């Protein structure tokens, strides 16, 4: 098995383990940490796909800023462990296997459908090509997202402000 395949399986296993841990953990802080692990594994997968800039942006913006926001909110709201549910155990024992089966079925169908895809050679200097696209063909969405972020900042301030 080539080195790339081994690295892929390791990173994929870490990502899936992190996602399962997100669902299974009871305290939101542990779920947040699991999500950060998933994001880091995904950044490794982007590097394997030779999308270096996206990998760096994923870590800097997603894992390094958005998740910090989540962690701040969890700490400030003092979110505790989830309480035990009072729903029926039958629903749990019937629902979880069905969910797993649905998941596996989805994965199988997707794998069958995309089996014919072959990776084209990656473009040299992907970062440069990406920035050319971003600032020439997609400059309007780029500027629109800056206004979007401004709106989001204003919205967050207005929503979370205390009326003192």
């Amino acid at each position, binding site marked *: 098995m080539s080195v790339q395949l081994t690295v892929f399986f390791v990173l994929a296993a870490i990502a899936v383990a992190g996602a399962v841990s997100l669902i299974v953990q009871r305290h939101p802080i542990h779920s947040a940490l699991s999500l950060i692990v998933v994001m880091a594994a995904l950044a490794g997968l982007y590097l394997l796909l030779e999308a270096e800039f996206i990998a760096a942006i994923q870590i*800097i913006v997603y894992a390094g800023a958005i998740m*910090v926001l989540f*962690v*701040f909110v969890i700490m400030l709201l003092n979110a505790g462990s989830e309480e035990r549910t009072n729903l029926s155990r039958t629903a749990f024992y019937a629902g979880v296997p069905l969910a797993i089966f649905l998941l596996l079925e989805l994965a199988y169908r997707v794998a069958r459908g995309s089996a014919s895809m072959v990776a084209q050679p990656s473009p040299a200097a992907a*970062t440069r090509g990406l920035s050319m696209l971003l600032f020439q063909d997609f400059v309007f969405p780029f500027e629109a997202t800056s206004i979007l972020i401004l709106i989001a900042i204003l919205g967050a301030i207005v929503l979370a402000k205390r009326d003192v």
Partner: protein
Amino acid sequence: MNELFAQHPILLVSLVKIVVLLFLLLTSLAYLTWFERKVAAHIQGRWGPYRVGPHGLMQPLADGLKFLFKEDTTPGSADRFVYFLAPFLSLSLAISTIALIPFGPGTFRIFGQTTSLVVANVNIGLLAIFAITSIGVYGVALAGWSSNNKYSLLGGLRSAAQMVSYELSLTMSVAGVLLLVGTFNLSEIVRAQSGTTWGFLPRWNLLSPTAPQLLGFFCYFVAAVAETNRLPFDLAEAESELVAGFHTEYSSFKFAMFFMAEYASMITVSCLAAILYFGGWLSPFPQTAAFAWTRYLPAVLLACVGVGLVINGFRYSTAWGRIMLPVVGALLCAVAILAAWPGAVDFVQGPAWFLLKILVILFVYVWVRWTLPRFRYDQLMGIGWKFLLPVAIANVVLTSLAVVIHK
């Protein structure tokens, strides 16, 4: 395993480089604490560590032993997993950024492979360093939260908010350098600063003929001091304000890990400043035949230090000092002679100038810490958002204008 190394010799070479670099980094981390205490003491008009070994040179060893032998307590109702994770995360991230820093231009052969003086020469080196720094915020925030102590929580959250805010200014101030050079690769950034303007001024990004990055360096340095939680920006961990901030409940080795993580990030930031603004491993003198004698300057400097140590050692008060200092001085002289050997002098030049620049920047770091008073937290955040970020953006705008006009 042997087959893996035979098929991919790059792994073995990288392993050797990592081991050597780790050893050098951890030693210099320990002696950076000694350096800081000595400089702090001399600024305050006293001697600093003097008794533990000649001139206090064994002080880091004594501190390390103290940290190892102290009792390792854990708060009763702390979240154990996160409590153990936080210092480990901080330290491992702070140390791993050194893998991306190029120390010199020379290449050398080892195990039949020709490699250069950098562990990982990635095309997005600068961006990767910022990525690792931005994850470092978690070490602080999680440490504050997992201690189950309201002072720690407040200190941790304040510290994390400060780091996230100044990270923006840090990245923006570096954008000026990126406009001048056009690549994220750190070795390329250093190579683009070679040559001189007007025959004698080195073309460092600080004094670039297109757009001198003075404003950028100022923003970078202030943001870096705030990012590493050092005075004058260390309210979140100040001893007199919030007990000890996010590392209140940590003792012995875990506290040592936070301590080391702070100094390691200091070293990283200084390395990056030297690479981005001061020409990395380039000599400040023009590389012409008339200035060929400057290639021996690092060796001469080292020899002077060695001779000084020998002379001081012979007249030292304790017997142990009279033996150890001359031995260390003689070793330094031997290294200096080796460095001045005709074959090795070009190879040694790069790392030597780089280390000299890092030392100067670290000295300024320590100097600033022990001279300026501390900022209040609202002043700190105000500076980060209302002063530093607009100035960094202005730097980007001015630099891009200058680059466009110059083309």
